[in-house]
């Protein structure tokens, strides 16, 4: 216990904290410009000087730890004089451009000048001048206004780990800029400008469009881009989002954001949004009234049901839709149309990965807290780059690295280049071999297994034919030393985190891969994290948007769960599981006659695009699509129903931690164009006399979910107000972890298939690039993200390009059995040899269109294949 006084007030502290922090906790405000709770201590601005008894000099309260018996005074005449002096120093060179500075009104320097009293300037010479830099499309720098607090640089280096900006020069000539001095070449997280206390680094997105005090409201909500579920603040004026702000101290992200979250919000206000429902007339989509479109949809669905039965209709739910909407969707399909043909893009890997993990460790095996990652002794990243797919989770890996923890990456993870201690550079699709090799080395080097579960350990020891480092090098291209050293680094950790990508599950070897992952996880006492590309991908699974599971992860096959739903929904349920995602398209025109797609774009987001498009366009009798844009899929529909963007509705998302978080409606209150997805479903249901959806609001639905799903039992919106609620909420999981049971089939599968060929170093390989700035359907309607990265490209290492006769900026034709595409070549050092990276983010050039697929037999997960790949320079 530490006892101090601040301004005579007695303060008890249970641990050593700075005086600044002690004061803050006790409601005593000490001003500061350079201090920020998310950043390393600096002590440069000298605004937080305080007087401490028995210390002759004033002390910076942000750096001095409170010690027992200290008597601190924060506003004595001496302190106030010093602060006035610091403000005078700062203002001698700071231009008084407040009338034209966007920061005025929320500028710390301005506020402090008001607080301590503005005085006539005594500085007679000219101020330092520095031309404003507008070379960058997103970030504008005004270094005359910079007060050299270095928050931005400490954010970029110490937290973001991007090392993209730095202080250049020395003394009064210091300023902050990127390497180029002009445009940024960075991750565009925007965290630098979010910590700038003055108007030195600002967003161009809303430049000169408003004054901060003109904002109508600030709404705390959840980001709509990926599965991390960052808490953000939407600043709203009129009915438009003016900017996204961080909420430091709150949420999964504690104020940190990524490029998509920070700058990508523009899609919600895009002029390309659907403005009315569309119906197909004479082969063309034409605007229609809601009444007409809804009536048509209801009538045609009823007709198909009457003619072919409910099982002839298939539905695809959306990972960007809320839990409430996805719940309503599967209920509409099951209870209304009588079909269990419900699936989603969670089928592309997340669902299978989760099933495999939960099959071993029990339900909730991957429900772990992202902010705990840096607290484990080691992080193992497998077949993913969390810094791209789930950027803020990636920051936690970087934080672990900064804290001196071991970070081992298996596979391509460019965003961890400077942040990993060990890299097992397995060739694409061969990460499982590296896993097997790593397990073998761990078992060889480790003194003893934990001993917690003898049965499981016996199974691990029973794995046969784990490959030697030499074999791993030959089969997966991982150098022997890297493997043995990684095992050496990992063998003694007491806790660890494993982050796995969906590609590990979208593989013919998925079972083996996860068996190995589970074994390593057991040996290293790991918590698992599965990367997730959509904000509510987990919610799709939990809400029952799968052919064989009901809400709450309850099997459809079990009568008791069916009865629970039947009772609530007032309808009989088909006990037979429905078709999976790819099967729906495969059977279109046969067993499947109509499809209902909500907030998903399968004509773009799935492999086998050619056949899917053909199915949607030619083989179905009827296709309904709900979306906010006229997507590739929507443009093939018979009825297109405009829905609301994430900022325009209430509801909940479940993130990859299985944390349920609440969205808040910020805009679009009177947005006539779109309706919430659940409302559209309820209206069609009412018109068609299907389903039982008397909802007036999203909260009516969550109340129903709480009744139907044992996992969500008793859940209410009020429970979600602060930082949401972690799994298992107030409900019951089906089977708690601890009941680890290695499945015999998986055990057998955990041996290495010796038929695997040497790594395909013989020819080039096509890899789907997952860029930081685009996710696909939404991001390409965001002006800022398009400014940052405007179009598709084929990235490869200079050596790879040279071998193929390709030069920087040249056109490259990529062709496969599925089709062909011409992209501009971009050479980037450090990419794996032989790999050609192309993204699936831009309309005419989604590289997934070059992939066919094969189904993993058990899970029906499509495993993408680029058959007959040819790369030709043009």
């Amino acid at each position, binding site marked *: 216990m530490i006892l101090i006084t601040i301004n005579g007030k007695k303060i008890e502290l249970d641990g050593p904290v700075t005086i600044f922090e002690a004061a803050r906790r006790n409601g005593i405000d000490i001003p500061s410009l350079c201090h920020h709770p998310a950043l390393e201590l600096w002590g440069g601005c000298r605004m937080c000087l305080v007087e401490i008894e028995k210390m002759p000099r004033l002390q910076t309260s942000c750096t001095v730890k409170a010690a027992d018996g200290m008597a601190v005074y924060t506003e004595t005449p001496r302190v106030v004089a010093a602060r006035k002096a610091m403000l005078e120093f700062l203002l001698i060179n700071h231009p008084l451009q407040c009338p034209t500075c966007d920061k005025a009104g929320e500028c710390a320097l301005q506020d402090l000048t008001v607080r301590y009293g503005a005085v006539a300037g005594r500085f007679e010479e000219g101020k330092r001048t520095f031309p404003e830099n507008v070379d960058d499309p997103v970030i504008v720098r005004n270094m005359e206004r910079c007060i050299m607090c270095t928050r931005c640089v400490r954010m970029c*280096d110490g937290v973001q780990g991007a*090392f*993209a*900006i*730095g*202080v*250049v*020069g*020395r003394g009064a000539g210091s300023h902050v800029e*990127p*390497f180029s001095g002009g445009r940024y070449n960075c991750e565009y997280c925007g965290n630098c400008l979010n910590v700038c206390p003055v108007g030195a680094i600002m967003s161009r997105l809303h430049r000169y469009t408003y004054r901060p005090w003109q904002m109508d409201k600030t709404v705390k909500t959840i980001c709509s881009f990926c599965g991390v579920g960052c808490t953000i603040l939407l600043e709203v004026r009129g009915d438009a989002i003016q900017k996204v702000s961080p909420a430091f101290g709150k949420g999964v992200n504690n104020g940190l954001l990524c490029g998509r979250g920070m700058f990508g919000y523009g899609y919600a206000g895009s002029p390309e949004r659907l403005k009315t429902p569309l119906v197909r007339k004479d082969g063309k989509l034409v605007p229609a009234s809601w009444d007409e479109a809804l009536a048509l949809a209801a009538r045609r669905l009823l007709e198909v049901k009457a003619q072919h039965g409910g099982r002839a209709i298939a539905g695809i739910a959306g990972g960007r839709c809320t839990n409430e909407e996805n719940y309503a969707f599967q209920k509409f399909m099951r209870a209304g149309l009588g079909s269990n043909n419900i699936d989603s893009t969670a089928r592309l890997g997340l669902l299978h990965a989760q099933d495999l993990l939960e099959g071993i460790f029990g339900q909730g095996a991957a429900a772990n807290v992202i902010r705990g990652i840096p607290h484990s002794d080691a992080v193992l990243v497998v077949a993913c780059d969390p810094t791209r797919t789930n950027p803020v989770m990636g920051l936690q890996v970087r934080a672990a690295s900064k804290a001196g923890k071991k970070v081992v990456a298996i596979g391509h993870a460019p965003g961890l280049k*400077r942040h990993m201690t060990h890299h097992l550079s397995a060739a694409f699709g061969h990460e499982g071999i590296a896993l097997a090799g790593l397990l073998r080395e761990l078992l060889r080097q480790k003194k003893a297994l934990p001993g917690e579960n003898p049965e499981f350990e016996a199974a691990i020891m029973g794995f046969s034919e784990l490959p030697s480092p030499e074999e791993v090098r030959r089969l997966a291209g991982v150098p022997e030393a890297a493997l043995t050293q990684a095992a050496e680094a990992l063998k003694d950790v007491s806790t660890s985190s494993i982050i796995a990508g969906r590609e590990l599950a979208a593989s013919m070897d998925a079972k083996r891969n996860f068996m190995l992952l589970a074994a390593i996880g057991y040996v290293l006492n790991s918590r698992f994290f599965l990367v997730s590309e959509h904000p509510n991908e987990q919610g799709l699974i939990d809400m029952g948007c799968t052919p064989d599971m009901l809400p709450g992860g309850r099997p459809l096959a079990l009568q008791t769960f069916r009865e629970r739903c039947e009772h609530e929904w007032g309808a009989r349920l088909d006990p037979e599981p429905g078709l999976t995602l790819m099967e729906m398209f495969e059977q279109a025109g046969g067993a499947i006659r109509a499809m209902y797609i909500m907030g998903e774009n399968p004509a773009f987001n799935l492999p086998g695009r050619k056949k899917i498009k053909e199915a949607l366009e030619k083989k179905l009798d009827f296709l309904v699509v709900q979306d906010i844009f006229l997507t590739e899929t929507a443009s093939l529909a018979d009825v297109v129903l405009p829905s609301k963007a994430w900022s325009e509705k209430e509801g909940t998302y479940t993130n990859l931690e299985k944390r349920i978080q609440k969205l808040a409606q910020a805009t679009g209150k009177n947005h006539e164009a779109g309706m919430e997805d659940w409302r559209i479903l309820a209206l069609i249901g009412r018109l068609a006399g299907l389903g039982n959806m008397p909802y007036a609001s999203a909260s009516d639905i969550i109340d129903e979910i709480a009744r139907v799903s044992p996992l969500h039992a008793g859940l209410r919106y009020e429970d979600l107000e602060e930082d949401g609620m972690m799994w298992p909420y107030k409900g019951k999981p089906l089977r708690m972890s601890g009941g680890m049971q290695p499945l015999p089939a998986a055990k057998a599968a955990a041996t290495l298939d010796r038929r695997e060929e040497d790594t395909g170093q013989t020819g080039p390989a096509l890899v789907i690039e997952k860029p930081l700035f685009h996710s696909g359907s939404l991001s390409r309607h965001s002006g800022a993200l398009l400014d940052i990265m405007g179009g598709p490209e084929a990235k490869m290492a*200079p*050596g*790879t390009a*040279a*071998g193929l006769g390709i030069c920087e900026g040249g056109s490259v034709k990529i062709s496969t059995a599925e089709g062909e595409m011409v992209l501009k070549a971009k050479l980037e*050092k450090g990419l794996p*040899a032989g790999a050609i990276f192309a993204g699936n983010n831009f309309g005419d050039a989604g590289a997934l269109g070059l992939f066919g697929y094969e189904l993993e037999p058990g899970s029906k997960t499509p495993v993408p294949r680029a058959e007959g790949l040819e790369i030709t320079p043009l």
Partner: protein
Amino acid sequence: MTEPQPFSPKSVALLEEIRKKYPTGRAALMPALYVAQEEFGWLRPEALKAVAEFLGLPEMTVRSTATFYSMYRHRKAGRNVIRLCTNVSCMVLGAGTLKGVLGNVYGLAPGGTSPDGRFSLEVADCIGACGKGPAMIVNDDLHTGLDAKKILEVLENYK
């Protein structure tokens, strides 16, 4: 398929020698910058990039460090770099006059380069020759006890 190496073999050898003296690549940065300055003439962006690549450091980190120190050149310099001390001890012995001489004879202004590219002039803050001031360092050579005549004689030897 190796990338072209921006450093000459001689510089690479030097850099490898330097790298061995420190436990981290970052610590080898300052001596490596000198090597790059020698090789590229001044620390132009390609030089900074080459150092970053060699030591495995972010480019921005290299630039930020390089611009802190006054001995690294961030613009093209003349063939010979004069560092004339004008700090107090040399100043009271007449260093200010010498600055004027260099301006008149070679057209040199502090921070500038003579029109013929022969000299660059940096005003130095004490070069530790206060006992024999005024003094200057030309390239790596110290010259002391200067006056208006001697400074020109000395500089005649630098072409």
